[in-house]
């Protein structure tokens, strides 16, 4: 018992020391710099077009777990579910010359990409599913991005714990060939728990980047004035890394 007491005290003292370091300006800067070193290393080692692994259709998981919002009850969302998403609209705006407003029908008629990929949650679990939808690059080209645009923000219908969900990526991930706006999972329309009727697939990053219940795509020059300024719901709320390729 004494030994455990000693270990616990030593552990607590060490943790307190770590937290002290994290609380200093230099410590906090160091901790957030590490995310950028990883991103830099990934971008250096990995071709910008390099694909996340794709699996055969037979590898699909029997059930695709939902996480975070799994059944949004806020705003118009329940009405859209009742209508079978017949009146859902996806807007493409912000720093673009040609803003768009698309129906699900418009989106299904664009050239499609299907990919069987693995979804990795930041918590640690993984599931494999087949996603289908148009590449984001098609929509961005159609909308004609302005040269000042640096980031693409994804606006979502779900409100989680009082805040609207949103996410963002840089142009490298936005134009990545596997970055699609998925309307189907395993050949069926997206279930509500997985983001019906539209969700993003950002295949080289963790699950919280794959914004669900997608209503808007917005090109911006900076993330400072979007949401809480950190680039996404979990980034603002809990301090998750904006670059989720780690």
């Amino acid at each position, binding site marked *: 018992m004494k030994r455990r007491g000693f270990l*616990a005290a030593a*552990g*607590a003292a*060490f*943790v*307190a020391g*770590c*937290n002290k370091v*994290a609380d200093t300006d230099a410590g906090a800067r*160091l*901790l*957030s710099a*590490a*995310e950028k*070193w*990883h*991103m830099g290393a*990934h971008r250096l*080692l*990995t*071709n910008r077009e*390099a*694909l*996340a*692994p794709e*699996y055969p259709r037979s*590898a699909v*998981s029997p059930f695709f*777990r939902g996480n975070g919002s799994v059944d949004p009850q806020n705003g118009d969302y329940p009405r859209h579910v009742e209508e079978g998403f017949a009146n859902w609209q996806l807007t493409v705006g912000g720093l673009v010359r040609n803003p768009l407003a698309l129906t699900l029908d418009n989106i299904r008629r664009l050239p499609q990409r299907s990919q069987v990929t*693995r979804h*990795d*949650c*930041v*918590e*640690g*679990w*993984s*599931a*494999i599913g087949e996603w289908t939808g148009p590449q984001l690059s098609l929509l961005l080209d159609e909308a004609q991005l302005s040269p000042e645009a640096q980031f693409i923000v994804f606006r979502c219908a779900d409100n989680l714990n009082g805040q609207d969900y949103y996410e963002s990526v840089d142009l490298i991930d936005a134009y990545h060939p596997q970055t699609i706006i998925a309307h189907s999972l395993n050949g069926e329309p997206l279930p509500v728990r997985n983001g019906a009727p539209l969700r993003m697939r950002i*295949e*080289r*990053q*963790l699950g919280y980047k794959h914004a669900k219940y997608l209503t808007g795509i917005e090109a911006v020059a900076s993330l400072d004035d979007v949401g809480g300024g950190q680039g996404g719901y*979990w980034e603002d709320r*809990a*301090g*998750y*890394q904006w*670059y*989720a*390729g*780690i």
Partner: protein
Amino acid sequence: MKRHVLSTRIWHWLNLLCVVVLFMSGLTISNAHRLLYWGDWGFDRSQAWLEVPRFPDWMTIPGYYSLAVARDWHILMAWPFALGLLFMWIAMLLNRHFKRDLITTRREWRPKAIWRDIVEHAKLNFDHGEGKYNFLQKLAYGLVLGIFLPMMVFSGIAISPGMEPTFGWLVDLLGGRQSARSLHFIFAFAILGFFIVHVALVLLSGPIGQMRAMITGGSTHEA
């Protein structure tokens, strides 16, 4: 001559700091999803091979449940950990520490010799090898430097979705992402096991002299 050269001493203490922070922040990350799987995927109990206990807050960094803060520490300390290990391997090969002190001879692998080594250990006589280290020491240090620590780096890279497009072969070699995650966990606890035995043997073999040697370098006849 010094018992431990400067590069070994610097790496030893840097690595200790890295391993402690990585392990304690890793326990928080484990608490986020306490199931381990084999293969590419898995998300609930029916696919898991192990349900890990919840680690109490006092064992974890930051001392309360925050996956985001734990990941901050984890991905920061991964850098000095991995680069330090690379540095130690280069130094060990260049200064012949590896060849001189760590490579085992065929003679040492004979069952009789191994048994004698175990018996000597049981008698708390550690200074009975032909070179600087006896067989069990060489085996332990060889396993840690050659397998346990590098496996943490490789399995860590394999879990990282941003690395997978380039290092997919590594993920395949480890049996898929969830296997890599399980191996990351298993080798972390293998390192904890080494750490406990290592500290216990230091305490049993004159801790003050051992600590002094690893800090100032000591001298070969002193040990």
